[in-house]
C-alpha cells in the first residue's frame, strides 16, 4: 500500500511529539511541586541564601510572572525553551543553553564510542557463540554476561582507574581534552554492557539459525559460518539495531556515574552537579535536553529499522 509508510512515520513522529510534551509538562511541574515557594528559592539563591523580605519577594514574583496562572507560566517557559532560552543558572547567573548543549555533545561522544566498542566486541563474539553453540566458549560468555550485569558500574570504573592509571600510569584518571581522557570512560561503559549485548545478539541469531532458509543455505553447500554471515546476520540486522537503541538507555545511565567519576564534562555530570548544588533551573534544562535527546534517538532507531527491513518498509 503506497503512502502507508508515510502514515506510520507520521504516527511515530506524532507520538514522539506527544511524549515530549508530556516530558516537558512533567519537567515543569516537578519544580513547582517542590517543597517551598519556588520564587523564594530562586530569590534567596540570588541573595546568597538570605531570606528575602515579603515586599522583595512579591515584587520578584510579579516581575518574573510567578503570579500568573500555571498553564500560562508553562507556555511561557515552553516558548522560551523552544526559542533556545533554557533559563539562567542560580549559581553563576549565566544563561544555561549553551553550556547544556556543549555538555550534551560531550556525552554523545562518550555514549557512541561506548556503544561502538560494545558492538565491535559483541558481534564477533555472538557469531562465535552461535557457531560453536553450547561449547565451552558459549558457556563462558554466559557467565561473563552475568558478571557484567551484576558489577556496579562505578566500582568497575574505580578498579580500571586503579589498574590503568594509578598503578600502570598509562592513562589519565580524570579530565578532558585529549583522546586518552576518553579511553577509560569508554572502556568502562562499553565493556560493562557488551556481555549482555553478546547474549542478546546470540539469541537473535539463534532465532534466525533455526529457519528454513538456513537449511537451504546448508543444503546448497555453504559452510555454517558463511551461512550465518550471509543469511542470518542480515535478517537479524533490524532487531540488532533496535537492540543497540535500547542499549543506549543502559549506556546513558552508565554515562551519568562514569562522567562524574572521570571528570568528563558531559551532561550526566552536569545533572549531578546541578542536583548537588540545588541549581534547579539548570537541573530542569539538563533534564529536558536529556529527554529530548532520548526521544530523538528512539525515533531515529525506529526509522533506521524501517529503512533496513524491507518487510517493515512494505508492510506498515
Amino acid at each position, binding site marked *: 500500500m503506497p503512502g502507508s509508510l508515510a502514515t506510520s512515520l507520521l504516527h511515530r513522529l506524532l507520538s514522539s511529539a506527544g511524549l515530549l510534551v508530556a516530558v516537558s509538562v512533567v519537567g515543569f511541574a516537578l519544580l513547582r511541586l517542590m517543597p517551598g515557594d519556588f520564587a523564594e528559592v530562586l530569590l534567596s539563591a540570588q541573595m546568597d541564601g538570605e531570606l528575602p523580605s515579603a515586599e522583595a519577594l512579591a515584587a520578584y514574583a510579579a516581575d518574573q510572572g510567578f503570579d500568573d496562572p500555571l498553564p500560562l507560566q508553562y507556555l511561557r517557559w515552553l516558548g522560551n525553551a523552544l526559542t533556545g532560552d533554557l533559563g539562567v543558572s542560580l549559581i553563576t547567573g549565566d544563561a544555561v543553553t549553551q553550556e547544556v548543549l556543549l555538555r550534551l555533545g560531550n556525552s554523545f561522544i562518550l555514549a557512541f564510542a561506548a556503544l561502538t566498542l560494545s558492538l565491535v566486541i559483541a558481534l564477533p563474539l555472538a557469531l562465535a557463540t552461535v557457531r560453536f553453540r553450547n561449547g565451552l566458549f558459549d558457556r563462558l560468555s554466559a557467565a561473563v554476561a552475568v558478571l557484567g550485569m551484576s558489577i556496579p558500574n562505578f566500582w568497575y570504573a574505580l578498579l580500571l582507574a586503579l589498574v590503568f592509571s594509578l598503578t600502570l600510569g598509562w592513562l589519565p584518571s580524570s579530565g578532558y581534552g585529549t583522546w586518552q581522557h576518553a579511553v577509560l570512560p569508554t572502556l568502562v561503559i562499553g565493556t560493562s554492557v557488551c556481555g549482555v549485548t553478546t547474549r542478546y545478539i546470540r539469541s537473535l541469531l539463534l532465532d534466525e539459525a533455526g529457519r528454513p532458509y538456513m537449511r537451504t543455505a546448508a543444503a546448497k553447500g555453504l559452510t555454517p559460518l558463511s551461512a550465518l554471515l550471509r543469511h542470518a546476520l542480515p535478517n537479524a540486522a533490524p532487531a540488532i539495531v533496535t537492540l543497540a537503541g535500547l542499549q543506549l538507555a543502559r549506556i546513558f545511565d552508565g554515562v551519568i556515574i562514569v562522567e562524574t567519576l572521570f571528570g568528563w564534562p558531559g551532561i550526566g555530570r552536569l545533572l549531578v552537579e546541578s542536583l548537588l548544588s540545588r541549581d534547579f533551573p539548570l537541573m530542569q534544562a539538563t533534564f529536558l535536553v*536529556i529527554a529530548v535527546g532520548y526521544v530523538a534517538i528512539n525515533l531515529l532507531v525506529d526509522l533506521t529499522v524501517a529503512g533496513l527491513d524491507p518487510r517493515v518498509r512494505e508492510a506498515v
Partner: protein
Amino acid sequence: MPAGLRRSRSDLGYRRVVLRRPGGVTLLAVMFLLLVLFGPQLAPYDPTLTDILNRLAAPGWDHLLGTDAMGRDMLSRLLYGARLTTVAALAVVLVTAAFGTLVGLAAGYGGGWFDSLAMRFVEGVSVLPALAVSLVIAGIFGLGLKAVLIALAAVHWTEYARVVRNLTVVERNKPYVLAAQAIGAPGWRIVARHLLPNVGGPLLVLGAYSLSWVILAFAGLSFLGLGVEPGTPEWGRMIAEARSHMRSYPRLVLAPGLSIMAFVILINLLGDILGDRWRVDQVFSPNRNQRNP
C-alpha cells in the same frame, strides 16, 4: 533496561550448572539472609565507632577485615551495610510490585481507556533513562534517603504494570476466567482469586531481577552522595569514602564492591531458578517463542 535483554543471557551455560542443582544457590541465599537478619548481632564492633589510633589497620585478629581511614571496623560496616541495602531495596521492590501489579491487573482486565492511558504512560516512562529520571526526582525531594527511595520507586513500578498487564490480557480469555464470569463472580473476585495467582510466578521472577537493579541503582546513588548521610555504613557510600585511599589501600574499595557484586549475582541466580520453575521465558521476550529447539 527492558526485561527482554535481561532474560536473554540465560539460555544455557552457567545456567545448566545452577539449575541442575538449585540447592547450592538456595543454601547461599539462606546464609545471606541470616547474615542480613543477624548482621548487627554478629558484627564485632559498632560500625560508626571511630578509633583514630587504629586507622587503616591491616586485616588481623582484632579486625578481621581491617579498619578504614577513620579506624572503623570494616567487617562491622559491611554487615550493617548488608541490612541497610536489603531493607531499602526490598521496600522499593515491594511497593513498586504492589502498585505496578494493581495498575497492570486493572489495565489488563478492565481494558478500555484506563488500559490505553496507563500503557501510554508506562511506555513513556520506560523510554527515558531510568537513572537520570530518578536523579531528578531525588533532587526535587531533597536528596535524602526518603527522596532516593521515592525516586527509585517512581521509575520502577512501570515494569511490573507492563508485564502484569500483558499476562492478564492473555489469561483474561481462558476458560477458568470465563467460567468464573459465567457463575456471576464479581470482577474484583475474579482478579484477586483467579488472575492474581496465575500471574504470581512470573511476578516473583521479575521481582528478583528488579531487586538486583534496585540494589545497583541504590548503591550508585549513594556513591554519588545521594540518599544516606556521610559516614553511614552503606556499601556505595563506603566505596565513595575510600576512594582517596584507593591506591595505598585497595581493600577498602574492594570489600564493599565485592559485597555488592556477590549479592547481586546471588539474586540474579535466584531469578534464573525461579524463572526456570515457572517457565516464564516467553513472558519477558516474545520473540524467543519462534526459535526451533
